[in-house]
């Protein structure tokens, strides 16, 4: 009974992506999802649509225009001052109203704190299936969404289907999917709906927002180059070797989980399943064994250089290049060699 799509749900059509707009800025995971959504929409032969929620003045126009550049055919927009700061109540209402009215078959959201908060509430309200943190999305033979996600820390993958409910919902973590190139000439149709809520109906109030720039939060997920250290660094003061190299490269720096647990680095710098997923052009991992939980957060890097004293370390199974050696010697040597290489390059260019 739970594997057949009931008749009244057969009208659900099109692939939707939630465009996460906050404080005038779109979270790039939205463009990653539109890129992925394009493939799903093409496989189904349906439209790709973006959903933009926010106050009119603060960037909704720009977000709508950009959704078209990232290949949306249509954008559903609810523009209301009550959507200025993220709050669950008005966002859940806006999204569930849109879904009930326009009936998408697939709805994707970024697995950010905002996206997960919203997705869980929306899926429960709509009584539909929600697959968390997908790493692969595909359309199967009966046109259902096959959503694949890691289980048990990535040692296995499982494919989850929502055959008898609509929309089929999924979240995807930032940087798990690749972002396509925008086509600035593209445009499309905008469908505007109203929120139908007044401030008095919303119980939760935002008293303040303390931005991270004030507290030096790391921006690992979107860094071009990341340098990270693991337990092979041996002592907390050796973290400086990682920071030195990162500084010469203008890179972000991060670590494996035990360093966070020991208090050597802050949690926002942890790379892996329970930390950040990174997708840099270059990832340098020093003294990191390459446990599965670390691997799932870092193997999307274009190029990985691993430094490890153990030639059998699992990290060499997924790194592109390896140096077998002592990270405490190799890191300062790399810093020095890069410094020289870069100054030569700057003199030349």
């Amino acid at each position, binding site marked *: 009974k739970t*594997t057949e799509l009931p008749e009244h749900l057969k009208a659900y059509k099109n692939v939707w992506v939630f465009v996460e707009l*906050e404080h005038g800025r779109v*979270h790039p995971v939205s463009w990653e999802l539109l890129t992925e959504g394009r493939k799903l929409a093409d496989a189904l032969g349906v439209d790709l649509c973006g959903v933009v929620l926010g106050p009119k003045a603060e960037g909704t126009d720009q977000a709508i225009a950009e959704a078209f550049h990232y290949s949306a055919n249509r954008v559903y927009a609810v523009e209301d001052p009550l959507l200025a*700061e993220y*709050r*669950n*109540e008005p966002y859940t209402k806006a999204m569930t109203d849109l879904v009930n009215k326009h009936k998408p078959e697939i709805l994707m959201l970024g697995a950010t704190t905002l996206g*997960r*908060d919203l*997705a*869980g*509430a929306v*899926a*429960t309200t709509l009584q*539909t*299936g*929600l*697959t*968390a943190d997908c790493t692969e999305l595909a359309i199967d033979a009966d046109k259902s969404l096959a959503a694949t996600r890691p*289980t*048990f*820390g990535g*040692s*296995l*993958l*499982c*494919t*989850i*289907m*929502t055959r008898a409910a609509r929309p089929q919902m999924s979240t995807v973590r930032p940087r798990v999917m690749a972002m396509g190139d925008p086509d600035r000439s593209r445009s499309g149709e905008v469908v505007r709906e109203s929120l139908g809520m007044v401030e008095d109906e919303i119980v*939760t*109030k935002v008293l*303040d*927002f303390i*931005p991270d720039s004030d507290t030096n939060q790391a921006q690992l997920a979107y860094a071009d180059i990341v340098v990270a250290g693991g337990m092979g660094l041996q002592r907390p003061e050796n973290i400086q070797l990682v920071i030195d190299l990162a*500084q010469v490269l*203008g*890179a972000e720096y991060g670590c494996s989980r035990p360093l966070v647990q020991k208090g050597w680095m802050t949690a926002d710098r942890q790379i892996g399943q329970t930390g950040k997923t990174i997708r840099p*052009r*270059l990832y340098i991992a020093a003294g990191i064994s390459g446990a599965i939980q670390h691997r799932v957060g870092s193997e999307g890097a274009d*190029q*990985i250089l691993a430094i490890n004293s153990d*030639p059998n370390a699992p*990290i060499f*199974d*997924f*790194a*592109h*290049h*390896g*140096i077998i050696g002592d990270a405490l*010697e*190799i890191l*300062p*040597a*790399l810093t*020095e060699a*890069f*410094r020289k290489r870069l*100054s030569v390059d700057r003199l030349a260019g």
Partner: protein
Amino acid sequence: MSQGPNMVVCIKQVPDSAQISVHPVTNTIMRQGVPTIINPYDLFALEAALRLRDQLGGKVTVLTMGPPMAVSALRKALGHGADEAILLSDRFFAGADTLATSYALTSAIQKLDSQHPVDLVFTGKQTIDGDTAQVGPGIARRMGLNQLTYVSAIPSIDLEAREICVHRRAEGGVQVLKTKLPCLITMLEASNEMRRGSLPDVLRSERAEIITWNAEAAGVEDLGKCGMKGSPTKVSKVFAPQPRAEKAKMIKADDGSPASLATAAIETMLAEDAGLLKVMAPQSTSA
């Protein structure tokens, strides 16, 4: 004497994943002999509730849905100082996804609420096995509770005015939110440190009565919304990740010195992606 908050903390028993391995041939999880623990994220929720009780009085009930062996998680929670424990267990609950899990848990919390109004429901941020972070929002939605996820601190609570103020981890910053009780809080990791149970609590936990409810006792109205039957998501296959075809190419240098290895590594990396030089933007130091 004013009455303290009535709190429910949802905890899940999970396999200690640090000790789990995958059978190399059959691709199944080898659970035999793997110890079970309270989902580590739930300890932050339990501690947050215990701190409010220290401060204001009231009651902390721990609730889990799971097989009969999940009582050991409840006993551990009692050992940490929870007042009462409820095990929600029935074969109808088996195979639940997050939608069906939040349905069953909500039935039990609503039953508690009918006996004595519940002010706060706590869950962990997520579990280490299912790892979806969806059950908290599911319960909040079903019960119509104000939903506060990723909470790192609870600076104030006013039981008279029925108001609570929390810090919530958001994208790019921290939101300071004020809302009304009752509400559901999912607690962020590292937001506190679980206390050691006192000796009397630990002793009590070994003998304490664990209230056990099946679907009927919990007041579940629609068995069709429970377990496998009530779960819109279905696992269609489980498989091992594709290993990368090639292993890392090892960097070699004639003298094997760190300096030559470093130089060789840089040339190798730039040969693969010459554009890297452009994104290398050293923090301006006088060089």
